[in-house]
């Protein structure tokens, strides 16, 4: 077994480098974390990693940060988690602070302005693309309850301007009730 100090250093540098050089957010970062810790270091086995990603995805917050936390915690407890958290958030903190400082100067530049204006259409396309893929995921399961929750939540958010947090709380409660109902009906153990 490697010394603690060495493990902490590896946890920090791996998460730091992945976060610093990966464009595209959690959906790109998570597979890279998996490659590093499952395939390269062999510190976590494949099945455990899948469970851990599921936990990270179902917890609030950023999936990439959550996955880093759970990897760090799994490998060397609370201190390990602290190292992976800092490794993951330091690069965006540094990079975005710098970008943000130049933002005003940037914005007044005609060329940058034109590019940003064009990119807004690109952002809309990326979000619509992500949404279509996710909606397909829900309709594929053919769960009527999920589809109804989705439609109602959309109406509540877009047309009725109901508080986003209320919508999330309410649908979580519905999900809990449905789960309880299903388990009760099928008599399954949980």
């Amino acid at each position: 077994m490697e010394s603690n100090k060495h493990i902490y250093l590896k946890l920090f540098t791996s998460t730091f480098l992945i976060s610093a050089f990966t464009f595209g957010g959690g959906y790109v970062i998570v597979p890279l974390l998996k490659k590093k810790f499952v395939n390269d270091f062999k510190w976590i086995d494949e099945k455990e990693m899948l469970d851990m990603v599921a936990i990270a995805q179902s917890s609030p917050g950023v999936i990439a940060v959550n996955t880093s936390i759970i990897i760090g915690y799994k490998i060397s407890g609370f201190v390990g988690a602290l190292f992976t958290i800092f490794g993951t958030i330091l690069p965006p903190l540094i990079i975005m602070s710098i970008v943000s400082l130049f933002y005003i100067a940037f914005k007044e530049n005609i060329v940058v302005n034109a590019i940003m204006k064009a990119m807004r259409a690109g952002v809309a396309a990326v979000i619509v693309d992500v949404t279509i893929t996710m909606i397909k995921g829900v309709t594929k399961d053919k769960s009527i309850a999920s589809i109804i929750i989705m439609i109602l939540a959309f109406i509540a958010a877009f047309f009725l301007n109901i508080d986003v947090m209320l919508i999330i709380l309410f649908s979580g409660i519905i999900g809990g009730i449905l789960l309880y109902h299903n388990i009760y009906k099928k008599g399954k153990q949980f």
Partner: protein
Amino acid sequence: MIYLELFWSFLKVGLFSIGGGYAALPLIQKQIVESHNWLTATEFADVITMSQLTPGPIGVNAATFVGTRIAGVGGAIIATIGFILPSCVIVIILAYLYNKYKNLKIVSGILNGLRPAVIALIAAAGLDILIGTVFNDLSINLNNINFISIGLFSASLFILRKFKPNPIYVMVGIGIVGGTIYLLI
């Protein structure tokens, strides 16, 4: 005082954004644009653009960027810490339970109800952004349609659906092509 408000706002965003960085966007929009008027809708669209274009998780990027815009580097640190604090606590508790019991059906079951709602929220935020790009003045007005933007949007969406490239390439490509068009006319 602004630090405390920023921390509290992002703590709420962090606690309620389930489903990753995109899920955080509608919540950040609500806190930053609608409740506090810290940024305008256009500035917020730029936040998302910047978050996509820089490396790292999109949610953390957005928190850092908004924090810096509102209260400098200190604001960035406060916003990011507020944003990730709830998930740190929750994930570590779940990781502990997982190591102990290796069974988290209850959690995943409850989240089955949440997931479709989160998708709907992302769709609603996406539609807001889409309206902002299709119409020049952020409100639905048929005299003010930006046809170039519609063209750029359609082309980007087509490429994303058809070839499934990394979004970053599409963003850069559309920035170069669209930027050139805007500069020429």
